């Protein structure tokens, strides 16, 4: 009773090759930048796009496997979908929208109406049952889409960017509502999002998808504690360095050296936290810091009482300093700067 998906499909230049498993009652978020192929994975699960290769198995039933010539059409899959812009039927009322799937399955009108009404009440839209989608707010439209998808008792619920269509002011409230309503559905759920806040708030597990591949899976805490991709590192706001460790020194592909404290040899990731980097105008001579990289300032970002300094060197780095330090150093883009870090401040884990 779970979902096993191996989705392989060529999307122009992008080769999508994504594998994951969702256990009963679990909500997996596919998180990644736009254009990574996340929505295509969701459409493949729903049967709206066929696989080139791979296999999708829902509750022990194979619904798509090109090698075995198996393809179950979307109307036969029992997969509910909440589409990105909700895709409500504009000519039908909220009640008719929610009853649509039941009517399409040949359930008599009165029965469908009764069951749809129960769902509408459950998502708190009782007052809007006879309204057309055009008269609904973003949050109400989302709840209608959710009720419509759940009314047919799907085995699997898919949500495509469920909060992306909302403005910032209502997102937090709608997100809280959505979490509440999703908790009442005990089936498997897969959500696609480019927003880590949504993934953090709603998902049990997260799969990071970049350029058509899963680069990291785990709980949100596991993923952010040990980033394994540039995307996650940027999310968390740390410098991620990939390279080979030999005898306590990590060498990157471009030849930059990072001295680290006690780590096993082999391919590894190193995390340099921006606030642990020390910036110095003149090259430091007597210092306990084992690492010093010299570069030029590419860009400056002011964030509250901190300034993030982006440095171009053989090892591209971002450092975070206080406003006071920034004023004292009088930094300008183009200036030469030395960044140093203690070996013990650098976290290293195997790649």
């Amino acid at each position, binding site marked *: 009773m779970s979902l096993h998906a191996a989705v392989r499909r060529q999307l122009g230049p992008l080769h999508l090759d994504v594998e994951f498993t969702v256990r009963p009652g679990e909500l997996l978020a596919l998180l990644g930048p736009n254009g990574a192929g996340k929505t295509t994975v969701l459409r493949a699960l729903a049967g709206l796009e066929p696989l080139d290769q791979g296999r999708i198995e829902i509750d022990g039933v194979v619904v798509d496997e090109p090698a075995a010539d198996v393809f179950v059409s979307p109307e036969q899959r029992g997969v509910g979908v909440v589409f990105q812009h909700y*895709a409500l*039927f504009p000519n039908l009322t909220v009640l008719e929208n929610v009853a*649509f799937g039941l009517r399409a399955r040949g359930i008599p009108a009165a029965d469908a109406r009764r069951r749809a009404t129960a769902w509408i009440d459950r998502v708190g839209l009782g007052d809007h049952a006879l309204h057309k989608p055009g008269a609904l707010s973003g949050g109400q439209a989302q709840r209608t889409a959710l009720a419509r998808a759940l009314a*047919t008792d799907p085995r699997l619920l898919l949500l495509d960017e469920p909060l992306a269509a909302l403005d910032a002011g209502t997102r937090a409230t709608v997100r809280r509502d959505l979490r509440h309503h999703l908790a009442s559905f005990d089936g498997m759920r897969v959500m696609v999002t480019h927003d880590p806040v949504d993934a953090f708030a709603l998902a049990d597990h997260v799969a990071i998808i970049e350029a058509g591949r899963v680069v990291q899976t785990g709980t949100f805490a596991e993923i952010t504690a040990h980033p394994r991709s540039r995307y996650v590192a940027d999310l968390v706001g740390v410098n991620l360095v990939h390279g080979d460790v030999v005898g306590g020194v990590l060498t990157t592909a471009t030849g930059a050296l990072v001295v680290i404290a006690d780590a096993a040899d082999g391919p590894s990731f190193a995390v340099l936290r921006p606030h642990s980097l020390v910036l110095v105008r003149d090259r430091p001579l007597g210092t306990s810091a084992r690492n010093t990289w010299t570069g030029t300032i590419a860009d400056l970002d002011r964030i509250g009482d901190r300034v993030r300094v982006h440095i171009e060197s053989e090892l591209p780095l971002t450092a975070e300093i206080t406003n006071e330090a920034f004023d004292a150093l009088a930094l300008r883009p183009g200036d030469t700067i030395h960044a140093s870090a203690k070996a013990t401040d650098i976290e290293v884990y195997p790649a």
Partner: protein
Amino acid sequence: MLAFAGVAVLFFALPLLGLLWRAPWSKAWTYLSDHDSLTALRLSLQTSLWATALSIVFGVPLAWMLARSTFPGRSALRALCTLSMVLPPVVGGVALLFALGRRGVVGQWLYRWFDYQLPYTTAAVVVAQTFVAMPFLVITVEAALRQLDRAPEDAARTLGASRWYTFRRVTLPAISPALAAGAVLSWARALGEFGATITFAGSYPGTTQTMPIAVYLARETNPEQSIILALLMIVISFAVLVSLRDRWFGAADRVGVSS
């Protein structure tokens, strides 16, 4: 600019004014209630409505195929199916004769097996009108299908709706303004059809002599009646155009609201 626009308006208004000027208003009712006029009018309405119905029944699936499927030669197929819009109608009529006439490619078999001759019957009028009118519906509906947001159709499929149920309850309501506009355009074209009809169906009063043909023939024998019949056609066409304009604006409004 304004002067040229004024000339253009005059260009369209003058012929109408000419008809109004020469119209025998005192005898208008007599001519209109004349048996021959009524017969032509009734025949025109009947055949043009049949042609519209056939255009919808066959044109919507054709538009759907052109909009939704990809196959080699689709552009050529679209050109073929809309050729009669640009073809001189008389040429269309001649082509229909060669296809469906007693010695035509298909017509000879109809004649041999069923002893049936299509040309010069009321059915031939409907065929000629459908031939020239259907493309107007096809291109209007195809454009609407192409611009349609596909997500609601996808949603319907995931909810368990078959392709046909999805088409009926989701796609068709969404394109209904375009379908209505296309149907009105087709009907107007069928109502005004002259060349293909007279070539393929002739002009037998009561069976194939439609209003435009009656106007043309009456010009020789009874010019006054011709003017009254022409004015009646103008009134009908004008009403169609005005209603169509509202349709188009209505459709534009709906698009604006949903986007």
